[in-house]
Every structure is written in C-alpha cells, then in structure tokens.
C-alpha cells in the first residue's frame, strides 16, 4: 500500500512537471518569469511550512533568503561559478549548514518569541550587508548570466531555461518533503506542534525536531534566495529586510501546512496580485496588497491547502469505494 502511494506520488509529480515544462513554451515570457519568482518565494515559504508543521513560524526567513542569494551571487562574481543548478544546490547546502548552526540557538524558543528572534537575526544580517561595501553595501550587486551544464542560453531562452530548472527542482523538493512529512520524524514534528510535553515524555526530542525543521527551512530558504537572485540577476540587502520576510509568512499562512502544491499556488497568487496591483494602481498597491492579506486571513484561515486536502481525501474515498 505504501509503495503504491509513493509510486503514485512520483508518477504524478513527473507528469505535473512535464506538463508545466511544456506549458512554459507557450505562455508569455513574463508569466514564465513570474512563475519562476513564485517558485523562489514558494521554496522559502515551504521552509516556513515545514517549521509550521512543528508548531513554529519564522518571521525572519529573509535571513536565509539573503544568505542563499548572496552565496549564489558571490560564487558567480568571485569564483566565476555560473551554473544555475550547481549554484542552487550549493546555496541549499550552505544555508542548510547555517541553519544547523543557528537552529539550536533559536530552537529553545516558541511562538512569538521564535518569530521575533528570527526576525531580529534577519535584521542583524541586513545591518551587516548594508555595511559591507565590498559586496555592494546597500546597492547590492549584479549577478553574471547563468549557464546550464556549460551552455549559456540565448537571452530569449534564458528565462525558460531557469524556469525548467526551477520546475524540476521544485518537483524533486516537493516529493522529498512529502516523503519527510509522511515519515516517522515528520509525524513526530506534527506531534510536537500539538503537545511538546507529551513528545518529550514519549522519549523524543522536540528540540531536535525543531533544529531539523529549521535546518530544512534554512536550506529551502537559501535555495529560494539563490533562485530569486539568479532570476532577477541582482541581489541587495533588501532580501533580508523584514518586509521580505513578511511576504514569506504570508504565503505560508495563505497556503496552510497541509499541502505542498498549495504553497506554490499561494506564492503565485501573491506574486500576481502584487505585480498587477503595482502595474495598474502604482499609487495604492500597498493598500490592495494589505486588504488582500487581511481578507484572505479572515476568510481562509486554514489556508488553501485545507481545500486541497479535503479534495484529495474525497478523491481517495471515491477510489476506495
């Protein structure tokens, strides 16, 4: 039964990825780019969702987002490494490692304190980044154009190449995370969310679960930051600013913690709302975004993911009958 489930999951993901990759050829360039950006934000939000499954929300994912972005950027400008896949992977590993270092420091805290301390860390990083002139200070710097396995795509296809890479990457990450969520440690994380005391009394470490989730979230955040940096071709300390972190939290709350695809859908939704309101209401886009945030928190408090789950449950029930 379990094998079937995973086979299904993998088959489904490959199918979905192929569809998206093919669709990418036919949609306008700007939408390809918006989706790539939404994936970058979605990856970070997926990290927060992973934390949320353990009962925590980080208001400072800009911290790892910026570290990931700067890692990819500096490898590009300083070490001449321009392969997008490699950059994304290295950023993932490096920020994951950073998460492993900072995780224990933060894992002692819960609720609002965790959120605020993570926010504080991101603001400290912001302070550091605007101070270091060697990496552009508050102006940030431009990233070199990315290559893909040694090939520099022509500018017409650069966006599409990155889109394909990010779709595949997201597919892999989503499947892996689904595995993790369904595994025993993933289940224990959910239990920590509900009753940490009991988890300890059952002999498992809530601390360790939190550090693990924080590390995963950091890695994902870093990868998202790298992807965002590569896609835009520019990074600056704004990556670590509190308003950036706020957007990630919003995406994860909008998505809820029940479904992985919902996270990316939420990210895309935010990206579209923001970019269209910025385009058609340049004077009042913040108002529109704010009202959108409030309304969606009021009317979909459990997130889009809960509908996904309900739908899937219904589907499964029908299948079984």
């Amino acid at each position, binding site marked *: 039964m379990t094998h079937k489930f995973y086979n299904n999951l993998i088959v489904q993901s490959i199918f979905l990825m192929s569809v998206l990759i093919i669709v990418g050829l036919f949609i306008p360039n700007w939408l390809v780019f918006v989706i790539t950006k939404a994936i970058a934000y979605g990856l970070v939000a997926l990290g927060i969702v992973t934390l949320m499954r353990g009962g925590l929300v980080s*208001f400072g994912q800009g911290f790892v987002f910026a570290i990931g972005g700067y890692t990819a950027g500096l490898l590009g400008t300083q070490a001449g490494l321009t392969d997008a896949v490699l950059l994304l992977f290295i950023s993932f590993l490096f920020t994951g490692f950073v998460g492993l270092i900072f995780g224990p420091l933060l894992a002692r805290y819960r*609720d609002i304190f965790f959120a605020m301390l993570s926010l504080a860390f991101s*603001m*400290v990083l912001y*302070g550091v980044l*605007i101070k270091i002139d060697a990496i552009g200070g508050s102006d940030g710097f431009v990233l070199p154009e990315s290559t893909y396995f040694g090939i520099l795509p022509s500018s017409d296809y650069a966006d599409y190449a990155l889109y394909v890479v990010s779709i595949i990457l997201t597919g892999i990450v989503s499947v892996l995370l689904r595995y993790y969520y369904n595994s025993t440690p993933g289940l224990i994380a959910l239990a920590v969310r509900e009753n*940490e005391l009991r988890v300890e009394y059952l002999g498992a470490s809530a601390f360790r679960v939190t550090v693990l989730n924080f590390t995963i979230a950091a890695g994902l955040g870093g990868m998202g930051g790298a992807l965002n940096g590569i896609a835009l071709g520019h990074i600056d300390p704004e990556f670590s600013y509190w308003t950036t972190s706020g957007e990630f939290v919003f995406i994860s709350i909008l998505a809820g913690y029940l479904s992985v695809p919902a996270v990316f859908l939420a990210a895309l939704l935010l990206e579209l709302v923001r970019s269209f309101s910025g385009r058609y209401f340049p004077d009042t886009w913040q108002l529109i975004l704010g009202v959108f945030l409030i309304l969606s*928190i009021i009317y979909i408090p459990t997130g889009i993911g809960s509908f996904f789950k309900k739908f899937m449950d219904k589907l499964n029930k029908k299948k079984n009958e």
Partner: protein
Amino acid sequence: MFDEILTIFLDGAIYASWLFIVALGLTFVFGVLKILNIAHGGIYALGAYSTATLVPIFYSLGMPEELVVLAMLFSALAVAIVITPIMERVILRRFYGQDEVLIVLVTYAIYLVLEDVQKIIWGMKSFYVSEPREILGAVEMGSLYYVGYDLALIGLAIFCGLALWLSLNKTKSGKIVLAVIHNPEISGCMGVNINKVYLAAFFVGAFFAALAGSFTAPLISVQVGISVAVVIESFAVVIIGGLGSIPGAVIGALIIGMARAACVHKLPEAEIFIMYLCMAGMLIFRPKGLFQGAQARKI
C-alpha cells in the same frame, strides 16, 4: 574632553528619549495583548500627519503659542480615538486566541494599508511644523547650542514612562491590567472584562505611537515613508529590553541611543551598524532581552 562626553551624553539622551517614546506603546501593547504591532509605525506616521495638519489650524485660530503642546496632544488623541476602534474592534479582535504570529501578519497587512491611507488623505506633499520647536528657544551646553524642544523630549519621555508605570502599579485599573497581563483567563473568570481591558490597552498603545509621531513632526519633514524605519527601530528597542517590559524599553532605548551617539562622535563608520550590533549582542547573550524571565519552553 569633558565637552565631548557631555555632547555624547546629551545627544544620546535626546535620541534615547525619542526611541523610548516610540517604543513605549509597542512594548505595552505586546505586554497586554501579546500582539507585536507592526502597524505601530503607521500610527506613528498618522500622529505626525495629524499634528502637521492641526498645528497650523491651531495657530490660525490665534491661540497662544505656548499652548501648542495641547494641539499636539489633541492630534495624538484624535488619531488614537479614530484608529483604535477600527484596528482593535473591527480587525484584530477576530484573531484573539489564534496564533500570535498570524496576528503579527495581520498587523503587517494593516501597516501596508496605513501607508497608502496616508497618501490618500494627505497626498504626496511634505508638511513642516517646525514652529513648536521654536517656543523653547536654544540652550548653550558646552560649546554647542541645543534646541530647548529637543531637551524637553527627555522630560516628555520620563513623564510618559512614569505615567504609564505608575498608573499600572498604583491604580486599581492598572492592577486589573497587570492581572490580565499575568493571566487573562483567570482574570476573565474573576469578572474582569477582558475585552474592555484589551480595548483600553490598545488605545493607550496607539496613543503613545501617535504621540511619538506628534512630537517628532516638528523635527522632520512629514511625508510618505516616515514609518518604515520607526518599525524597526522600536522593534530593536523592545528586543534589547525584553518584549512587554517598560523598564526594558528604557534600557533598550538608552543602550541604542548612547551607543549610537558615541559612534557618531568617535567612530562614524560603525554608526549604521551599531543598532543591529546591540541587537545581535543581546540575542546571543540574552536572547529574550534584559527584562524577560528565562522561561520560554513549555517543558
């Protein structure tokens, strides 16, 4: 030498006073409602705008100059009276008892809305109300001139802090608020109207936010975008002092104020960074701030 120390001390004290007034409402609202109100910065900006609007009207009515402080107080009060029912009653109240982080997000959304509300009401124009700053004249301190108004900010900060602290600890309603801070559920069972306490506490917080804006207005050009930095500065103060603690806010403001003044005079390269450095140091050595108990874990 002595001159320089005096200058650093005065500059630091003025800046710290400003920070304290800005952070006071934030830390108080957190203490009572457990809401970290990002929209605090937006209310601050509204306070500044409303002062910039009301003070010229006040002068045009031919009122005596010295009483302009009343107009400033009134404009802060007006902002709090308008904003509290909308924010607390209409929006935030729906979220009580839900995840605190969700509420932070809601206040962030409100912050975004307030940013554009300022634009819709007051447009893109800058406003100047430097007149109140001229009442107290200038004072010679060491080799420098200080503006009396700036020095009076120190007094205002002390007054605000003491007033809030005393009314919390020495009055009956203050004690009720303390009881709610300690345990809202039990206080509710004992007959305290929690909703009322929350409304009042939010009002006080909003009033201090607007007051900070009102008294900053004469120092700056009031225009769009003045709130974003305030959010993070007041946040730094409460992180250093400990969320929800009034004495903590005093210390937090003093640490940042003094450190910044010392940097500007002695080590200007570090100035931009010093606030974050204080915050980082505090996070590493005492992550819950100076005035927070150590317990944070459920176990």
